[in-house]
């Protein structure tokens, strides 16, 4: 059944050229995941607003503490996450537009590797901070640094769990053009995790 659906898609006009994505009236993926994404973005938005509010109360402390952050690690991590997002997008495209499950699985594996790299680097960063005796109770800046990044860290873990499931499913040919609801939903979630970091990194590491 799978080979059959692959066949029909390959002979379909999709293989002529890279087709322009059709304008859609609804977002890709499942509406349920979008509720979740919106709720999560709302939580992060409130958290960021709280950070801004707290920083305004004590700018000097925040600026002084910010110098202890490793911007290089943060920068590399930003690149890793954006790359992972790109890989996920390639995977979705390979599967949804071209029906190439094997290619899609490779891209997903690459994304998982990038995400894993993010976690590893972040762990090194945390290890340094914990070794320096920094905890949630040290001061307001470190409270926010640890809360925001750890909250995001857990999202990366969840995102990787989801990507791993997608990878297994894709490898088995579980998705294809017209039936990629799960893949698109998971991809949307991963992009959210990436998006949050793109706001978080400048806000906490760089901006002053």
């Amino acid at each position: 059944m799978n080979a059959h659906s692959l066949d029909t898609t390959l002979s379909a006009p999709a293989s002529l050229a890279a087709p322009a994505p059709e304008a859609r009236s609804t977002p890709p993926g499942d509406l349920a995941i979008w509720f979740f994404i919106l709720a999560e973005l709302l939580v992060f938005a409130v958290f960021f607003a709280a950070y801004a509010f707290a920083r305004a109360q004590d700018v000097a402390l925040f600026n002084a503490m910010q110098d202890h952050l490793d911007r290089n690690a943060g920068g590399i991590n930003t690149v890793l996450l954006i790359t992972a997002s790109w890989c996920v997008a390639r995977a979705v495209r390979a599967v949804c537009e071209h029906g190439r499950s094997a290619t899609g699985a490779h891209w997903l594996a690459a994304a998982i590797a990038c995400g894993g790299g993010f976690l590893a680097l972040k762990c090194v960063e945390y290890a340094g901070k914990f070794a320096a005796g920094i905890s949630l109770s040290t001061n307001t800046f470190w409270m926010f640094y640890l809360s925001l990044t750890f909250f995001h860290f857990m999202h990366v873990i969840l995102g990787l769990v989801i990507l791993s499931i997608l990878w297994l499913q894709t490898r088995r040919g579980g998705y294809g053009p017209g039936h990629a609801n799960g893949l698109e939903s998971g991809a949307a979630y991963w992009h959210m995790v990436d998006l949050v970091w793109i706001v978080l990194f400048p806000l906490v590491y760089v901006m002053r």
Partner: protein
Amino acid sequence: MSGTFSKSMARNVFYGGTAFFVLLFLALSFDTQQALPQRDNRANLTPAVAAGKKIWEVNNCIGCHTLLGEGAYYAPELGNVYKRRGPDFIKVWIKNQPTKVPGRRQMPQFNLTDKQLDDLVEFLKYTSEIDTNNWPPNIEG
């Protein structure tokens, strides 16, 4: 594929989201356990304090009073009563209940021994030294 809203996805999101936030809550609770020794005044948690806590409990003091703001709102906050009134006042007050002033709220007579009163005061002293982020706002509780 687009514009779908499936029950199975909603269910997966529910399980995933719940597991996520349970784990996060456990992580924060773990950190709290680590941080408590600096805040909960455990250095002064003597056997007398423990005995006093039990006297507090078996007389259902929480049924009228608040302790650190939790309990019933019928009678004054007692988390800081040690600082507000001092040990002797507290003991004399408890011994002299009820006031029997007509129409006034009445506190029962609990027939506590002197030892029990001392323990209870020790418990209230210990409670008043817990780091509560400067709550209550003033001595009146």
